[in-house]
């Protein structure tokens, strides 16, 4: 779905800090939303979480920088980082061009997924959340 020119794919879980999580059978893929990349504009630098590190829901797992500003990436779920998207280091613009596909940030082996998913929004709820921000 779409609101205010922001893409919000169905089937993902969304955080208030504008990260998304896609739940797979044995891992979760995480990234930043279209709203986040449009707000940052021209992403020129990314700091990824380290491979094997433990990340905690709503705690910093990395940073993205535009020419003008630094933004933290907050983990949408807790768990162990089992894969990172190394392409982003040399091609940070993937976050602007394909935030939900080639611009994924990390794959995480979740530790408390069931309870944490309750704190995230579905596409419909996230769209309503953005509508409020844009008012």
């Amino acid at each position: 779905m779409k609101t205010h020119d922001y893409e919000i794919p169905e089937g993902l879980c969304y955080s208030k800090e504008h990260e998304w999580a896609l739940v797979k059978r044995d891992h979760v893929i995480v990234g930043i939303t279209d709203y986040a990349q449009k707000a940052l504009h021209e992403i020129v630098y990314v700091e990824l979480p380290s491979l094997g590190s433990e990340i905690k829901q709503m705690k910093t797992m990395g940073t993205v920088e535009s020419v003008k500003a630094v933004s933290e990436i907050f983990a949408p779920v807790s768990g162990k980082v089992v894969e990172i998207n190394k392409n982003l280091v040399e091609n940070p613009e993937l976050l602007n061009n394909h935030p939900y596909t080639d611009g994924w940030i990390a794959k995480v082996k979740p530790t408390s997924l069931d309870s944490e998913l309750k704190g995230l929004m579905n596409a419909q709820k996230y769209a309503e959340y953005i509508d409020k921000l844009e008012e």
Partner: protein
Amino acid sequence: MRNPPQKTHLYKFHAQRGRIEVFAGFEMPMWYKGIIPEHLAVRNGVGIFDVTHMGRTLISGPEAETFLNYITTNDVSTLTPLSAHYSTMCNPQGGIKDDFVLSRLEKEKFLIVYNASNREKDYNWMVNQLPRFNVDIKNVSDNVAMFAVQGPKAEQTLQKISSKDLSKIERFKCGWTELAGATTFIARTGYTGEDGFEVFVWDTSLTSPEKAVDVWNKVLEAGKEFGIEPCGLGARDTLRLEAGMCLYGNDIDEDVTPLEAGLGFVVKLQKGDFIGKNSLVKQKTEGVKRKRVGICMLEKGIPRPHYEVWKGKEKIGIVTSGTLSPVLKCGIAMARVPTEYSTEGEEVTVKIRDTFAKGKIVKFPFYDPTKYGYQRKTS
């Protein structure tokens, strides 16, 4: 700060085409297409900036030169009519009240253009020094729009709509011309490191902005063949930083003297008395203890204001401005460090969050001046 934020003549254009943010009490465009494409348009062709938020004041009268020589650090007596120079005003301690460009319109008439963030402070400061001088001062900020047209194609762009031969106006010279039919004062100055002009559209109030809007649109039209871009304050900041020019409030302020900021070339201690002179003479005699330097990053990471600068295990200074350089494609910064660490080539580290990234002290501008900027060897 004023409340609510003010709008310039071009507000409608900015709101339709750009991302608006409030800067120094004005709703200004941060970018239109993006900071990087706008930055590169200026380095490679031409760009136009609305800088009407800056302060513009006319100073006239028999003692205008004497007055300005007393409140500024550069030597106003060397400024011939239709010339401009960069200068600073200092407090009695030698700290910079503001930096600005002063143009001499006539023997007894000057135009001072200062930072938006200091509009009220500067005007009040000048008014407070007035009583001893036979001088009139008139704030024309709201009746004169100001654009910067910058880049190697700036002259060719403006020439298409100018009544005057612009090649006759050299760098830091100025003059009057009809631009797209409007009376404008034009100075070959800027804040990008490139050749270019600052254009003052006379007699166009904020309530009847048509004349200013028309000149803006005609410049965009004239520059089309050179790939002109309207540019926001984002690119203005990255361009001035690459060129090694100070931003007031970041790199310089009332606690920094022009000598510490590397602006000794606008401090003329041999001229008569001026505000701050005694402090500056003393500092010059004793030697400056800290300096403004450029740091070019050797490792990944973008330095930002307030990040710490380290040498080995010791914190030695602070970043005052920093960004990713669109031309060099690496992090660049201005920093304040002790004089002993300010030598070109000195290796330092910048603390970026939890890591220390290597950088080295370089001279300004950051880019190769034979390839970019107003001194480039034309290709």
